[in-house]
């Protein structure tokens, strides 16, 4: 019984939110743009922009005489990276990052494996709290806490002396390069602090990747004759590798860029982050600082390419 008068009448007023929904439903691209616009702008301008500004800086150089930046394109600054003292810094940092990453992975894997395979309910909640708890307190405080733990008068030394292992400690501290006056003034100390600091960033991705390996896949491997060790090597590990790689990206790049931990705990020799800090600050050599900053980016790029070549992401 719809007559012409009702058809011509204005559509009853709908709720505004409903109309917005309809409007966006017909224009899905607009919705995506609205959702991603602000973050994209942020990433584009603030993040990529500053990265590009930094890259540009690295192609300038500094006038050794006046200390002024010369705004002319040159590879001179990059060439400076290959001076023995600078090369030392790079090599030292990369070796440290490698050691930290490998050790972190070795410690994190069993923990992550337990959490993913066996823990459930309460135990799993405890696991998450235990892993995340250190992140709730200040990074600086934790590093200083480690300085106290590792110091000659610290709790670690006290424990070592109580159990009569001081000769072992002295032997370790007497080692060339990695030794030092005390643990808190040696590479060993820096190493321990780094491993501690970045461990959560290794555990969580590995745990996430292990969690995604279905139990039937492990059963299937056993069913096909594989002993648990073979199942681990042929099935579990390959499927967990993306998680290990993700975790190692964190630990590796965080170690490459950190400039506080090695300053508080460790020998006085510089790491990459410290070099950047020194050159952009007191030395006022922004181009060299920028060139130093490019090093971790290149190292990570090489690392990812190699990982991909080795098939680390095949299971993704």
């Amino acid at each position: 019984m719809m007559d012409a008068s009702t058809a011509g009448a204005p559509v009853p007023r709908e709720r505004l939110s409903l109309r917005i929904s309809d409007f966006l439903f017909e224009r899905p691209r607009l919705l995506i743009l609205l959702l991603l616009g602000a973050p994209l702008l942020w990433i584009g301008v603030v993040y990529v922009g500053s990265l590009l500004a930094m890259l540009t800086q690295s192609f300038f150089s500094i006038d050794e005489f006046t200390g002024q930046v010369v705004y002319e394109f040159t590879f001179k600054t990059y060439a400076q990276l290959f001076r023995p003292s600078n090369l030392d810094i790079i090599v030292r940092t990369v070796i440290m990052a490698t050691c930290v990453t490998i050790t972190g992975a070795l410690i994190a894997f069993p923990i992550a494996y337990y959490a993913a395979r066996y823990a459930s309910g309460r135990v799993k909640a405890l696991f998450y709290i235990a892993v995340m708890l250190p992140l709730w307190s200040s990074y600086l405080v934790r590093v200083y806490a480690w300085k106290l733990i590792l110091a000659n008068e610290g709790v670690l030394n006290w424990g070592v002396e109580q159990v009569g292992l001081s000769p072992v400690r002295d032997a370790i501290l007497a080692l060339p390069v990695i030794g030092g006056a005390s643990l808190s003034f040696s590479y060993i100390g820096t190493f321990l602090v780094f491993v501690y600091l970045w461990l959560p960033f290794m555990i969580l991705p590995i745990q996430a990747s292990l969690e995604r390996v279905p139990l039937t896949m492990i059963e299937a491997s056993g069913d096909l004759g594989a002993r648990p060790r073979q199942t681990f090597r042929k099935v579990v590990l390959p499927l967990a590798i993306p998680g290990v790689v993700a975790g190692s990206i964190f630990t590796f790049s965080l170690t490459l860029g950190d400039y506080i931990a090695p300053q508080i705990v460790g020998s006085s020799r510089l790491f990459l982050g410290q070099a950047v800090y020194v050159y952009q600050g007191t030395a006022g050599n922004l181009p060299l600082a920028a060139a130093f900053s490019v090093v971790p980016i290149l190292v990570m790029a090489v690392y990812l390419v190699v990982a991909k070549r080795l098939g680390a992401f095949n299971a993704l």
Partner: protein
Amino acid sequence: MSRSAVSEAPIDEEESPVADAGAASRREAVRFVGVTRQFGDVRAVDGVDLRVRAGEFFGMLGPSGSGKTTCLRLIAGFEQPNAGHIEIFDEAAEGIPPYRRAVNTVFQDYALFPHMNVLDNVAYGPMIRGVAKAKRHAEAREMLRLVKLEGFETRQPAALSGGQRQRVALARALVNQPKVLLLDEPLGALDLKLREQMQVELKALQRELGITFIFVTHDQGEALSMSDRVAVFDQGRVVQIGTPDEVYERPRTRFVADFVGSANILEPSLCERIGAPTGLWSLRPEKIVLAETGPADAHGAVIVNGVVRNVLYQGATRRLLVDVEGQTLSVVAPATTTAVESGDPVRLRWHANDMFRMIDE
């Protein structure tokens, strides 16, 4: 009414003394003696006795949670029994881990390794056994040919359809030449047409290879059409073992009659009316015919009058619900029965031998 004498029908027809002589000579692939598997307070498998003969296609049928999958996992070695004894080809299986058993499984979700291509998936078993690459790839290719998946060697599992994945899982299990192949709901994830096709292919494959196949299903049609023998599970127990037609024609309990196909359970009043001894009688709907025509009293014929309450169109057949003596009987009639409508009086006829007396549990 000769069958009315069977008051205690055996779960497994083979166990009755008469049939035993013939069975003793055949090898047993799997034997369960009083096997129980508990999860906490729940008895998933509760005192199961089973004998699976070498070379047969054995179906384990039951609703979800009836213990059939746990039985399969007990054979595979993923579970260990809390009580009882399991033998696989006369060797005790308790405490033997899955990787030491000459048994392979096709998993319900196929469980293909996502980081390997099809060929490496199939060659996994031989690789674990240390077979050289060229040889194991040749074996895997041969298996892929057997399951009609030639040309898929370099595909990743993610790039396959459900049916193809299942074939890969099948090839991956069979390449190890297992003594027993276990299939967990093998056709569950496939669509209807593919399922029917795979039923035929699986059956043919089993004949060709002569390997004992044990499969789990909740689909009674699948169990009846594929198995040489079926074990019907209910609440952790085996309630009946037999050939598909034994299980279908002579259901031992009300549960079996209901779960395998559909059945009319005759009420005591109706039994009295037709002169059957008291007890629990089942009658398959397709055994009942409309008797307005035809000979009225062939020997052993039972004839009752009723009123059609409902007619359900089912394509090839029609299901009539007929009220008889205060009970509703389900009748499957050919689709050509078009004259009957609800409210019509009808005469129903069946043969007394088509009624089967069950155990009251």
